[in-house]
């Protein structure tokens, strides 16, 4: 018998610190599988955020940089401009990317910065203990919206892919999920396409992955998957929001 499935080389052989059932680990693995399959680990630099994935630099075997909160796209820009030969990706959560780092995200996209952004949307601030995120759904209870997010007081959630797809500099914006094996396969395909775009110099690619946070949602991992499907996906529809390779440049 031969091993047909095991940890990709680009993923360090260590225990991940994430809570049981947190889907960050799946997304880490998918990025690493793509890096392995493209054979680019030695020429890749990752930029991690502040948030639950702040320790991602301990998990990716490629060179890693830890950015200030929200600034990963700017740090990645610095890396890519200084060394265009390197493959550069950021790995960011929703608070990092869509609240404190909105300007950096939008401007990296509009510049058509030739980088990959992996955006993990779990509708909450995980690391600090479940506060309202820019992507928290209306009515969702968090530690800072104890009566549920009221759009009148707290505004509405941001749909990042929809927003970025309006920018000319965005090459590829796609929303996927990791709730089922078919969706996991689609997520991997999207990540692969994003990295291929960078290789081909096509510009800014973002893969938004709907993810779970069992601990802060107050649910079991299985219940969290159910919530992802029943509550998150209707608000954040999966699909390709922009693809410059597609006919007409956009599909949604």
């Amino acid at each position: 018998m031969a091993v047909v499935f095991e940890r990709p080389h680009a993923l360090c052989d260590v225990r991940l610190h994430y809570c049981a059932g947190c889907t960050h680990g799946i997304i880490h693995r998918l990025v690493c599988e793509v890096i392995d399959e493209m054979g680019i680990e030695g020429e890749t630099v990752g930029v991690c955020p502040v948030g639950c994935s702040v320790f991602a630099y301990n998990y990716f075997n490629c060179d890693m940089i830890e950015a200030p909160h929200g600034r990963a796209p700017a740090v990645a820009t610095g890396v890519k401009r200084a060394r265009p030969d390197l493959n550069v990706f950021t790995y960011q959560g929703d608070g990092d990317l869509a609240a404190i780092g909105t300007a950096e995200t939008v401007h990296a996209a509009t510049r058509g910065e030739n980088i990959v952004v992996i955006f993990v949307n779990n509708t909450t601030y995980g690391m600090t203990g479940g506060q309202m995120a820019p992507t928290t759904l209306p009515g969702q209870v968090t530690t800072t919206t104890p009566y549920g997010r009221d759009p009148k007081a707290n505004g509405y959630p941001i749909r990042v892919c929809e927003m970025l797809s309006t920018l000319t500099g965005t090459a590829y914006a796609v929303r996927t999920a990791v709730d089922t094996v078919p969706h996991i396969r689609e997520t991997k395909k999207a990540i692969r396409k994003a990295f291929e775009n960078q290789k081909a110099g096509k510009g800014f690619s973002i893969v938004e992955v709907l993810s779970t946070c069992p601990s802060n949602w107050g649910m079991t991992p299985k219940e969290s998957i159910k919530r992802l499907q029943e509550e998150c996906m209707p608000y954040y529809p999966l699909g390709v929001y922009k693809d410059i390779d597609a006919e007409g440049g956009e599909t949604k």
Partner: protein
Amino acid sequence: MEKVLMKGNEALAEAAIRAGCKCFFGYPITPQTELSEYLSKQMPKRGGVFLQAESEVAAINMVLGAAATGTRVMTSSSSPGVSLKSEGISYIAGSDVPAVIINVQRGGPGLGGIQPSQADYWQATKGLGHGDFHLIVLAPSSVQEVVDLVSRAFDLGDQYRVPVMLLSDGLLGQMMEPVSFPEITAKEVDKSDWAANGTKMARKHHIVNSLYIEANDLEDIVKERYARYAVIEAEESDAEAYQTEDADIVVVAYGATSRVVKSAVNKARAEGIKVGMLRPITLWPFPKKQLCAACENAKAVLTVEMSMGQMVDDVKLALECKKPVSFFGRTGGVIPTPAEVYAEIVKLNGGAK
């Protein structure tokens, strides 16, 4: 060597390119904008990168990214913009990567004004961001010295893996002076043991990071950094002593202010007053030894600044309060005149005779 007439900001930009600066990330702000404009024209022609960021916050983080790859990188701004950069500067210091930051100072606080100022001395030398750290701070007083200190800033940054600030001001930035560009050989520093520039599958991955979740680990790394700071303090402090050998009165001034003070000292000398000037070139490390030596026989010390008095604290500390230290300054963008400084010197000398 051939001299050309150049504006301070443009000379600084040219000197940076010659010192091997490969990337510049900035955001427009008066009175440093000519520096960015010059680089936007020159960098693409000379194999470098110029990028106008969406904010000072983004610019300094681009600097962090480029610096992490081991590339010589610079940003420039003026006082309010430097405040915005302080977050990134703290991360750069905490990540032990070299970078050069230019502050062409203007009046503050808040939006303040756009005239020359030295009111960011505290910010530059004591409080540029959160946490236990220092930057090396260099203070030129002429366009030629701006040029000379830029290459030194890059070399010091690489050598000690620290951010280096060149503290200019609106006066030095905007004035034109003849300047020559000496042949520069950038010190070759091996960055292969820390730069995040791809493992090539030949080494363990490098992590450029300022996060240490275990308190003892963070204390250890900060102490290691402070050991480096101790070497910098011992080796790199610099100052110019002007007619201090027999001075009864020593005036301490840096940057553009020192030019005003020099005029006042010359006038006082012509009147027979034994006065000299000590001009710190490094503001951090503060040139304590040089100051103490210059003030050995002094009866009075006067600090002159374009602020309400920020360096004066360091002067008192360096002299351990053994000499009376007085202060004269103008602020808000007002430049002190030689006559005003001369009057202060005369006052210290016992009044008009």
